[in-house]
């Protein structure tokens, strides 16, 4: 902009080095890994059967000052009363078991939906960047149209009308999130296809489609992959929200949104625990995925 060289102000490169941010990134990594592990083994390591009621209905969680003693008892495997760490809900189900079993639904749906939309979106984005102009325009206008729909409401309608199964939820979320990846990949493809290695491959006589898939696409995936983590967070919020309004996974599947909805009626009677813990689980998980994604972005920019 200006011809005069001015020293940059302190903090101009603020995004690059900041130990605090790195801590957030590590926390994010930890949460992401934990959620993936629980997605696989959660239902197996739950202390109680997630579908069979215990004998205690709306048993509150143990008081905070008792927790260390109870933890010690359970570590040393001493004989003790059964402990319901997060209490039990109005059907007598153990909330802790259900909270750690729920990633099998929430995280799996979010991950599945994003894998589908990442694949679809990056291929369409590539096509929009390298194919004939009218194909690109068609893809971009379709993306605009999909994004004009209100996300949550459209999700609600599609899932309910198509049948509330895990498969339809995954496909619905995938459809709604694909435009994000199309946009990110396309804009990166537009800069990458100008680079020297593309000309080099062309000079070697490679076919255009082959160049696009093997040279341009792998180099243009970074923004989409960074977005992947953040969008998984959105998708978890969305999955839980859909089942909260009764337009998502069916009960009695252990799922965070359903658990919050089941506890909603007890809130007014002062029984807060059936809703509190699943909501905390959602917040921490989404926070973790966001922190992980932001950390990746910073590293990529540096």
């Amino acid at each position, binding site marked *: 902009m200006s011809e005069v060289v001015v020293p940059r102000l302190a903090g101009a490169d603020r995004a690059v080095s900041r130990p605090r941010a790195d801590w957030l990134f590590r926390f994010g990594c930890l949460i992401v890994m934990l959620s993936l592990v629980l997605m696989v083994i959660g239902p197996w390591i739950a202390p109680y059967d997630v579908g069979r009621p215990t004998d205690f209905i709306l048993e509150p969680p143990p008081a905070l000052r008792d927790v260390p003693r109870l933890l010690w008892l359970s570590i040393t495997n001493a004989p003790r009363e059964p402990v319901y760490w997060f209490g039990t809900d109005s059907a007598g189900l153990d909330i802790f078991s259900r909270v750690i079993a729920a990633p099998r639904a929430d995280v799996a749906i979010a991950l599945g939906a994003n894998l589908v939309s990442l694949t679809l979106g990056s291929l369409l984005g590539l096509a929009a960047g390298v194919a004939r102009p009218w194909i690109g325009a068609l893809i971009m206008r379709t993306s605009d149209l999909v994004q004009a729909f209100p996300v949550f409401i459209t999700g609600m309608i599609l899932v309910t009308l198509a049948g509330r199964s895990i498969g339809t939820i995954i496909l619905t979320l995938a459809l709604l999130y694909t435009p994000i990846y199309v946009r990110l990949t396309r804009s990166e493809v537009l800069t990458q296809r100008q680079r020297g290695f593309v000309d080099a491959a062309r000079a070697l006589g490679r076919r255009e489609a082959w160049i696009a898939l093997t040279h341009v696409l792998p180099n243009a995936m970074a923004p989409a992959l960074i977005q992947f983590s953040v969008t998984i967070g959105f998708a978890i919020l969305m999955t839980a929200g859909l089942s909260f309004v009764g337009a998502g996974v069916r009960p009695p599947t252990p799922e965070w949104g359903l658990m919050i909805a089941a506890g909603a009626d007890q809130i007014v009677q002062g029984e807060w625990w059936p809703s509190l813990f699943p*909501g905390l689980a959602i917040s*921490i998980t989404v*926070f973790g995925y966001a922190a992980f994604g932001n950390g990746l972005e910073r590293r990529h920019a540096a």
Partner: protein
Amino acid sequence: MFVILGRVLSSLGVLVAVSIVLFTLVHAIPVSPARVVLGGDASEEDIAEFERDNGLDRPVIVQYLSWAGGVMKGDLGRSLIDNTVIAVTISQTLPVTLELVLWSFCLALVIAVPLGVLSAYHEDRWIDHLARVVATLGVSIPTFWLGLMLIAWGAVGLGWFPAGGYVPWSAGAKPHLLSMTLPSVSLGLYYVAIISRMTRSSVGDVLMADHVRVSRAMGLSRGRILIYVLRNALSPVVTVAAMSFGYMFGWALIVEQVFTIPGMSRALLNAIFRRDYLVIVNVVLVITAMFLVANLIADLLYRWLDPRTAR
């Protein structure tokens, strides 16, 4: 002027395209509303008769055109299930939803913009860290859960607010505002996060611009510089705020469910569960229209704030 006209026309085009897609979509579903009205044990003839009476046996394109023709004349049609006039349903429920969204939007702006400006001015001080924590937490907490926890805290625990329900203005300003407080906070927090983050990065960028340095060197007062900074930094904030306003309508419905507020959510949810095609299409179109109008207004504001974009 022509640019604005073009924008209005393209928004209308989007609206028409959305209505066509929606209409096709809800009609592609195998379950007929006749099943819902007549019950599970209705015979095939009864269902066929119901569909004939309500014009559901016509081709989808004919149904669309007859509905669209009605909309041009201000007639949105009637519910297939209980025969209520859809325009009446919407005119009764939209103001409630709109009020909730407006309160949340004002709340979000009033908190987010100063927070963003302060954290950009005091980079890496406690206010900046606080803003970052608010911004990251705000996008991670589910709106509906926050609403429930606010009920547990503010209504059940402290007893300051009603636990839900909607008190109309006619019952007095104070009870009305109290009944809107918790819903507005739970809907607004997410947008406090988004708008404050945008404000911070935008103001931070402008603070490093040459003209700000020159203004400082010339010894202008902090207040005057702040006005110049805001004028330059607010354009992206306006865009994000307008999009937020549009998105709020979607999430307002879930907040209305939590607080049992008689806005559009109940109408829409009932319509979805009962396969009431026309109500679904109309309500979603109204919400999409709100989104498009918010973006149009943002566009106008943008031109006013930054005449360079008007060209």
